[in-house]
């Protein structure tokens, strides 16, 4: 464990520091200390020194300024914060950055670029899989992982036979994407985009 209050302040944004000043108890022993952690984000090692309370989501957005990953509910209910950790999708809001020392994190910024879209990004554009776009980075990260999970044989609630290979069908996409909420209601186009990438008819 390194540093003290000064390090914590230096590592925070001005608005963070403000909040901490007003909400932290005055006892210096209770002041936040930071801990070192290295995240491998989109292929690059990113060493950080963080207050233990920092979620993976806040580390990505506030400390690494990768604002593609969105904060919706901050309670694991909406899926806007979905990123891939060692290839698996998780809610980055319900994970401490310290839990991910050495982990490979892929955010929407790491999937593709405006010049070279990931096939799932291209399919979302083609099928109009969004309106306001706020949930879209989470939807796309989740959708990429869903197709991997289907390929890996992870069963779902709607699967009739647990011993059969899961299919990339419309009902499967809908069930497997239920952790990603879209208030604009682009669901049917999202399922179409996923079916397109999976090479199946929705």
């Amino acid at each position: 464990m390194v540093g003290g209050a000064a390090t914590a302040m230096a590592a925070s944004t001005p608005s963070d520091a403000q909040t901490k000043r007003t909400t932290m108890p005055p006892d210096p022993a209770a002041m936040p200390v930071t801990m070192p952690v290295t995240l491998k984000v989109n292929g690059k090692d990113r060493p950080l020194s963080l207050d233990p309370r920092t979620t993976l989501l806040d580390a990505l957005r506030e400390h690494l300024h990768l604002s593609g990953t969105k904060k919706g509910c901050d309670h694991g209910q909406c899926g806007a914060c979905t990123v891939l950790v060692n290839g698996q999708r998780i809610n980055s809001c319900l994970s401490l950055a310290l839990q991910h020392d050495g982990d490979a994190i892929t955010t929407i910024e790491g999937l593709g670029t405006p010049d070279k879209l990931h096939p799932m990004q291209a399919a979302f554009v083609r099928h109009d899989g969004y309106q306001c776009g706020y949930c879209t980075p989470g939807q796309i990260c989740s959708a990429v992982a869903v197709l991997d999970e289907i390929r890996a044989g992870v069963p779902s609630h709607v699967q009739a036979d647990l011993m059969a290979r899961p299919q990339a069908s419309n009902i499967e996409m809908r069930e497997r994407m239920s952790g990603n909420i879209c208030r604009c209601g682009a669901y049917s186009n999202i399922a179409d985009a996923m079916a397109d990438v999976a090479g199946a008819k929705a």
Partner: protein
Amino acid sequence: MKAFTYERAKDPVAAARAATRPGAKFLAGGTNLLDLMKIEVETPTHLIDVQDLKLDRIEKTEDGGLRIGALVTNTALSADERVRRDYGVLSRAIAAGASGQLRNKATTAGNLLQRTRCPYFYDTNMACNKRKPGSGCSAIGGYSRQLAVVGTSGQCIATNPSDMNVAMRVLDAVVETVNPQGQTRAIPIADFHRLPGDTPHIETVLQPGELITSVTLPRPLGGTHIYEKVRDRASYAFALISVAAVVQKDGSGRVAVGGVAHKPWRVEAADAQLPAGAKAVTARLLADARPTEHNAFKVPLVERTIAAVISQARTA
């Protein structure tokens, strides 16, 4: 979120020892704990991250069952070929819970220790004997549609929210632990979760510092495995009620129910009624039910869901 210190434990006994420190808590997946820490329902001062304890394997036991490491994720457990083939009710129960993202992170031990979703437990402005012992229960006389109908007390009517636990109960799983002195013990799932009584804040029989290392399943039971969950939307919602069942060709079997009590609910005398039908099973299972005006619907819902399960098993 309140400030805390963080460490990664190197071995199970060291983790158990570290957890005897006042205010310390184990951190596995964190999907439930961090959520509750954000709203300051949980306020640990020290977190012991157990992810490096190598408790993430599923192995055969000597008597033909399975030993599931405490840190096996819900996804890995549900997807394991042996679980899908021999313990289908468990695979299905897990797939019926939460979302893909949460199942990738949530662990077997964490799911066993998942805390109630009673809205009054979550709302720190309300009285809750579970959150703050002795403060009262706002759920009693409050909005109780989701809450328990059986095994309740005058202090608490919360339910255990887990789907996995209902399947573990029907399979007679055993929870294996280690304590800070390095002693191990095996706790049958029937004894693991407690009824609320006068101490609803004490939810399991685990002692201070005691760490879950694995869960074992007995040898496969055969039969038809069914998990039927009834909820307000088709996916990603907690159960109003759920039924886990293993039914044999002759109509005998066992049944456990979720969403009705402070623990996964099973009454062995009710199992014996399976060949007689859903009415007889439910009469035994919920004989002592004390529903509220909001959740009285759960009693007939359990009966009808068991009837659907029995009919499914017949045609399987």
